[in-house]
Structures are given as structure tokens and as C-alpha cells.
């Protein structure tokens, strides 16, 4: 087992930069998810860690060894990382046991030891009785488990997952998610897990690296990402946060400050050392908006849509002072709002997005 450190890594494909100055440190035994929209460079990052792509700038270290830099590149077969590919990449001409034992055969492990370790790996993923099957005769979930066992058997220093659940149906996804979490707990392997599904990342990871357009946006725990996004991209990407313009009116005190949003004054959480400033942004969640009476602080606007979702409705709203800003919140039963109706809302709390945007 070993940690992974990615330092100022840049990757250019011709003119375009697929990755731009990305730095991530993964601690020994940590489960880190890389999350971002499709095309943001997640797979490229993974392939560089595995050694399939060279870096254009910066370097990558696994444990205490530098494996990638602009000058030198350790080939994938010498890195001792395991990969679980999105489409499993099981060799169709080998049985399940042969697939799993391949790395050991390459390393010239004796036959008896090999059989034992393959047996253990099969047991680890609950596939003991499937050793003699061919991959073609397995279900999607079983293939996934074989792929997992195959990458574990060689005791890699680091396991990489590239969207491993993207090809599975919803039910299987949930149960595999549990299995991955369970597996990480049991083995303590360092894991880098790539996904575009934030629920998956939140459920599994110790920390999440959010990426966009080849840049690292924020690297933090799931809670921190949700409650204290470092910039607008993270704020709006995670759980559909709303980003609203605000003026900061007081200095930070006790992690809070007073802001004016859409004409309403309120207290939001913020970083240490925030000073009053104009043109700031806050992030607030659907749960932090409520409808209020005419005399209470708040702002007027029009309901544009109300979609009933069983037990509650998702209500969309346009503030009168800034009709381009679409807000949304949930109203519990009995649902009374309808499209076209006027309403008065108030924001109850929120998070002041830091000015520098840095993670």
C-alpha cells in the first residue's frame, strides 16, 4: 500500500490542455473520488497515474518513488497499480481463475501459491464457485467482481477505478457501491475512484476531488464540498446549489458575516478573515429557502413552475428584482403554489463563496 501524490500535472493533446496544473495528494489507505462532468479529464488523469499517458509537465509519485515526469516515465507494467476498467476488460479466452492468476503468472509465482492466492481473491469477492467459468458466461455484477479480484490479487500499491458502475443497472449499482465500501474497509487499499455521479462519490469517498475543464476545483471531504464550496463551479455542481449575487456588509466574526441578497439582509457562514465587499456570491440550498409572510424580511417574485413529486413539490421561482436568477425550493404537502402565482420568499442561511476561488 502506498500514497499517491500528483504535483502540478499538466497534459496537453496538441493544442488543447486536457489537464492543467492539477495537484492531488492521496494518503496511504485513503479512498479518494475524482468527480467531474464528462470530458473534464478524469480518464486522462487515471491513465497518467497508470502510466499509459505521459505527463506534459509536473510529476506523479507513488509511495516514495517518482513514476511520471516530463523526462521519465515508468512503464505501466512496472508500477504495481491495479485498475478496474469501466468495461471490465476481462480476457475472453481465459477462465475466471486464469484471469485472476495472470499477474501472478507474469511474476512467476509458483503454481501452488498461485492457486491459493487466486482462491483467496475469489473468496474476497464471493465468487468461489465461478473459477472455471468464462467471462462471457457471467452477469455484469459478477464480471465486475472478477475484475476487482483480478486487480487485487497482485497486491497493488494503489487501485484505480474508472467509472466502474457506469455500465450496471441501478439496483446492481447500489449493491456494488456497498461492496466497494466494504472492501475498502476490509483491505485498507489506497483507492482512486473516478466517477461523474456525485451520489456515488459522496457515498464512498473519504475525500472528493472536483474537476472541471482539466482543472482541480476543490479537494475536500463530502461534507465540506456540500457546505463550504470553494467556488461557483463546485457550488452549482454539487447538489444543484444556487449561486446568488450578494454584498458583504460586515467583517467575519465567529465564522459568520452579514450579507445583502436580493434586497434581503441575512447572516451566512463564511471563511475566516472575510471583509466587507461588493459583487460577492453566496451559495444556498433548496432547504435554505422558505416562503414568508408579507411583513417579514424577504423578497417578492413569481412562481414559474411547481412540480409535484409525492409528499412535496419542487417549486421554481423568479425574484422580481432579478428575474434571470431562477431559484428553486421544496414545499411540503399540502402543496399550494402554482405557476403564475406571486410569492414572498426568504433565504434562511447560506455560505459565502470565497473571493479567490481556491481550494
Amino acid at each position, binding site marked *: 500500500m502506498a500514497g499517491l501524490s500528483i504535483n502540478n500535472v499538466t497534459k496537453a493533446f496538441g493544442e488543447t490542455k486536457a489537464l492543467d496544473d492539477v495537484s492531488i495528494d492521496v494518503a496511504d489507505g485513503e479512498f479518494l473520488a475524482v468527480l467531474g462532468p464528462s470530458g473534464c479529464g478524469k480518464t486522462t488523469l487515471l491513465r497518467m497515474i*497508470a*502510466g*499509459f499517458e505521459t505527463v506534459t509537465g509536473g510529476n506523479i509519485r507513488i509511495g516514495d518513488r517518482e513514476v511520471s515526469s516530463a523526462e*521519465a516515465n*515508468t*512503464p*505501466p*507494467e*512496472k*508500477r*504495481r*497499480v*491495479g*485498475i478496474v*476498467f*469501466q*468495461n471490465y*476488460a*476481462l*480476457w*475472453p*479466452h481465459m477462465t475466471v481463475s486464469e484471469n485472476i492468476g*495472470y*499477474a501472478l*503468472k*507474469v*511474476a512467476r509465482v509458483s503454481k501452488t501459491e498461485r492457486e491459493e492466492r487466486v482462491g483467496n481473491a475469489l473468496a474476497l469477492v464471493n465468487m468461489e464457485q465461478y473459477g472455471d467459468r468464462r467471462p462471457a458466461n457471467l452477469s455484469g455484477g459478477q464480471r465486475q467482481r472478477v475484475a476487482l479480484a*483480478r*486487480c487485487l490479487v*497482485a497486491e*497493488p500499491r494503489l487501485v484505480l477505478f474508472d467509472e466502474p458502475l457506469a455500465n450496471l443497472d441501478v439496483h446492481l449499482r447500489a449493491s456494488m457501491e456497498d461492496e466497494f465500501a466494504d472492501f475498502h474497509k476490509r483491505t485498507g487499499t489506497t483507492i482512486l475512484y473516478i466517477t461523474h455521479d456525485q451520489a456515488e462519490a459522496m457515498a464512498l469517498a473519504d475525500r472528493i476531488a472536483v474537476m472541471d475543464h482539466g482543472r482541480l476545483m476543490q479537494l475536500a471531504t463530502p461534507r465540506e464540498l456540500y457546505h463550504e464550496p470553494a467556488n461557483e463551479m463546485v457550488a452549482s455542481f454539487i447538489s444543484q446549489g444556487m449561486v446568488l449575487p450578494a454584498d458583504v456588509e460586515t467583517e467575519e466574526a465567529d465564522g459568520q458575516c452579514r450579507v445583502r441578497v436580493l434586497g434581503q439582509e441575512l447572516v451566512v457562514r463564511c471563511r475566516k478573515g472575510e471583509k466587507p465587499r461588493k459583487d460577492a456570491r453566496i451559495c444556498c440550498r433548496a432547504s435554505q429557502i422558505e416562503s414568508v409572510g408579507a411583513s417579514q424580511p424577504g423578497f417578492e417574485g413569481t412562481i414559474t413552475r411547481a412540480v409535484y413529486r409525492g409528499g412535496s413539490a419542487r417549486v421554481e421561482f423568479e425574484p422580481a428584482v432579478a428575474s434571470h436568477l431562477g431559484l428553486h425550493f421544496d414545499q411540503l404537502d399540502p402543496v399550494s403554489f402554482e405557476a403564475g402565482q406571486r410569492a414572498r420568499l426568504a433565504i434562511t442561511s447560506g455560505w459565502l463563496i470565497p473571493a479567490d476561488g481556491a481550494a
Partner: protein
Amino acid sequence: MTAIRKERQGQDMALTAGIVALIVVFSLLPMVRLLQEIILPGGRFSLDIIRLGLIDETTWRATWNTLVVGLGGTLFALVLGVAVAILVSMSNVRQRQAFVLCFVTPLMIAPQVTALAWLQLFGPSSPLLNMLGMAPPLGTRNPLYSPEGIVFLLGIQYAPLVFLIVRAGMRKLPRELVEAAQSSGAGWVRVLGTIILPLMTPSIVGAAALTFVSCVGNFGIPAFLGIPANYLVLPTLIYQRLAGGGPAVLSEVAFLSVLIGVIAMIGIVMQDRIASRRDFRITSTSLPAAPYQLGVWRLPVEFGMWALIALILVLPLVGLILTSLVRGYGVTLTAETATLENYYFVIFQHAAASRAFLNSLYLSAGASIFAVFVAIPLGYVIAWGNKRWIKALNLAIELPYALPGVVLAIASLLLFLKPMPITGIQIYNTVWIILYAYLARFLILAVRPTITGYFQLDRALEEAARVAGAGLFMRMRTIIFPLIAPAAIAGGLLIFMTALCELTVSALLWSSGSETIGVVIFSFEQGGDSKYAAAVSAIMVATTFLLMLLASLFANKLPDGVLPWRD
């Protein structure tokens, strides 16, 4: 750490070096040698050979003839091939699979066998016409001994080639394009003329170029049909010169073979120009268009299609088999006079013929096995490699096959006429020079399906082996070879079938003791022993059918489109 890197680079370097050596030996060397012969004879620059070649009147006549039969054959093959492709792809005719199999089969049969079969069908000694009492009187000239005959047979031989290419193009035609035209009110004829055919331009032009090159380089058909009529094309002129003059005329025929090469190249370049003039790219992918309902015409059309099969496949084969059963010249074939003696004679009694069966067997087995083992690493570098210059060298492997066989044969002669330097080994006048030429010429037939195979294979399978710690050679052996072998072997089988009856190259390179089956058929026919030629040919056709059957047995393990006769 550095040691590890060295070891890996070692394997990479070995692979690269091997491939470069291969391309140099089998492609660049013969071509360079050929060019040297005509512009740097004896090491000094001189244009004498070109000048002498150009003032020779026979050169011009043969060039003219080559162009006539080349263009004529191409045109005929195009009309036939495109028409059949449209019927099969765009209409609701039945029994497509079987029809395609039958229609493509002539491509699998060697041209000289086709020529022989057709010759047996017409002419005064035709057993079939005699049985029907329709034979022309003895002494009448066979109508196929003419330029028209050559064009006709070239057309039949290569129409399947056109068909395969155009059919592949039509399969990719998205149905929306056809349906959009239909809903704009266009009838089928109009859709065909304004949408389908224009969109098929790249396929049709590509097919035309390939067919033209094949027709221009074809030796078997003009040799069987043209030499008796003294109608010479460049390949047959080269053959006659070389047969008459031996190595002394090598420079002269080197010029002629470069001339064929140039004509072939012009065809390829013209195709490139036409294809790049407009953008024909089809961007969307979807289901193929709904077939046109022929309605009451379906039965007549189907009848016509099978009549075509009867004409181009069944009749000539029947003619061939009947001839192989005839006792002697002028003896009318009846149930009583039919005999298997001819088969017995060619297999057991005729020394050169029985030798030739073995020679051709060894040669084609050698060429196909070599090609399979070379195609896998070569395809790996071309399909999955990241070195640009190796991709450029891919063109170099195409060259010995793209250019007519005569060109390579003459180049091999020039290369090996003298003993090889350093070793002093002499392969001229042995079977080894034929093997060399076969390896060079047919390698690409295995490389192409292998590359197709690589493109259909998920690269993650190899990457998974890399992260498991396997080095290049280990991955080749345990992962890549087992997965890609079926495609490469299918290619090897194509090579085997092509090489088994090959004539163009071996006609120029054979010597006593190193006869090939193609040469034996040719010699029998030239010596007037059509019945023996027919017997050998019939055996070869049967072998071809067997091999096709064999390949079809493991067809479901192959990438799509590797076996040409499978629709």
C-alpha cells in the same frame, strides 16, 4: 530502475527493428533494385534502357492493348458488380447469403482456371457443346481468343471485387438519407440516381481503381486467351521476352514491368483525385434503408440473378469437369467414354505435375504461416502503435501487392540473379525465390484482416495485462496472440488459397523442379493437353471449395468482413 527501463525498451526496440528489417527486405529492397536497373544500370546513370524501350514498337502495341483490356475489363466488372450490389443491398430478393457466396466465388478461383474453364465451354472441342450437338465445326477458332474475350473474362473475374466494395459502402448508407428523398416525392429510380449512386461514388471509384490495377496486372487470362491470338499485353509480353531471351533481356523487361507499375499507379492516383474532389463522408450511423419491394418483379429478377450464377459459375465449371473426363482430342464425351485417367495421370504419372502439387502446397503453407506470425506484431504496431513513421511504412507493405505481380517477379529476379552477398547463397532457379516473392506479395492479405481485428478489439484488454506487470512479449504471447489469431489465420487462409494456384509470379520465376500448380496448368494448356490442365484445375477448384468451407466453420470467431464470401 534504469535496468527495468532498458529491458522494456529492449523489447520495444526489438519489435521495431524486426518490422523495419521486414519492410526493407520484402518491400523496399526489390522496388529499389528494379528502379536501379533501369536508371542506374551497372551503377552508372543512364536513360538508354528507357529510350530503347520507348522506341520499340511492340512496347507501344502491348501498352495500348493493356490499356484497352484494362479499361474494358474494369468497365464490364463495374457495371456487373454495381448492378448486383444494388439488387442485393437495396431490394427484397431472397436467398441473399447463397447468392453472394456463389457470386463471389469466381474471385477465389485463379484467373487461369477461369480462363481454361471458359475456353472449354466454347470452341469446337467443347464437350458440352458436343453433347448438345451445338459445337462449331473442327478448325473453327474459339471466339474467346480475342480482346473481347479477355475483357469479358476479366469483367467476370473482378465483378465480385467491385461487388464487395460497393456492398460494404451501401451497408453504411443511413436509411434517413433515402427516406428523406422518398418523402420529398422521389421514386426509387430517382433515389437511386440522385442519392444512392452519388453517395456511393467513393466506393465505386475505389473499386474501379482496384479492378483496373488487377486487370492491368492480370497474366492468366491474357496468357490463355491472348497468346494464341497473338494479342499481347505487357505481362504476357514480358513473359514471352523472358522465356525467349532468359536473363540477358532482364533490363528490357525491367523497363516493361516499371511501365505496368506506372500505369497501375496512374489508376490509383486518379482514384484519389476523384474521391477527394467532393466530400462524400457519411456522418450518421443508423439502420440500413428498407429494401425496395420488387412486387411482381421479384420472381423474374431472382430468376435472372440465378441465371447469372449459372452462366458465370456453373457453366464454366461444368465445362471444366467435362473436359477433365474426356479420353482424347475429338472423342465425344458420353457415359461410356468418360474416364478418370486424366486425374490419375496428373496426380501419379506426370513427374512435374505431382511435384508441382507438393511445391505449391509447401509454398502456400510457408507463405501463409509466415504471414500469420508476422501480421500479428506488425498489425499491433500499425493499429495500436504511436509511431507515425511506421504507419507510413505500412504503405510500403501494400506496395508489392498493389503493384501487378509481374513487377515484383522481375524485381525478385534482379535481386537474386547473382548469389547473395557475403553468404554466397544462390536462390535463383530454386523454389526459394518463388517463396521470397510470395512472402513479399501476399503478406498484406494477412495484415489487413489483422488490423481490422485490432480495431475491433478493446485495447483495455492489453492495458489490463500491462498493469498486471506483463512486458511486451509476454502480452503478445498470452493476450494479444490468442485474441487476434483468428483474424490473422483467416488472412493466412486467403493467402493459402491465392498462392496455391498462383501463376503470374511463378510463371516468371519457376525452373525445372520448382514448378507450381499454376505453371503446370499453363504448360499443359500451351502444349495442347487441355484435358490434363482441366483435371488439375478441377482438383484445385475442389480444394478451394473445401478451404472456403473450412474457413466458414470458424467464421463466428472472426471479425466482420474478413471472409469475403460471407455476406
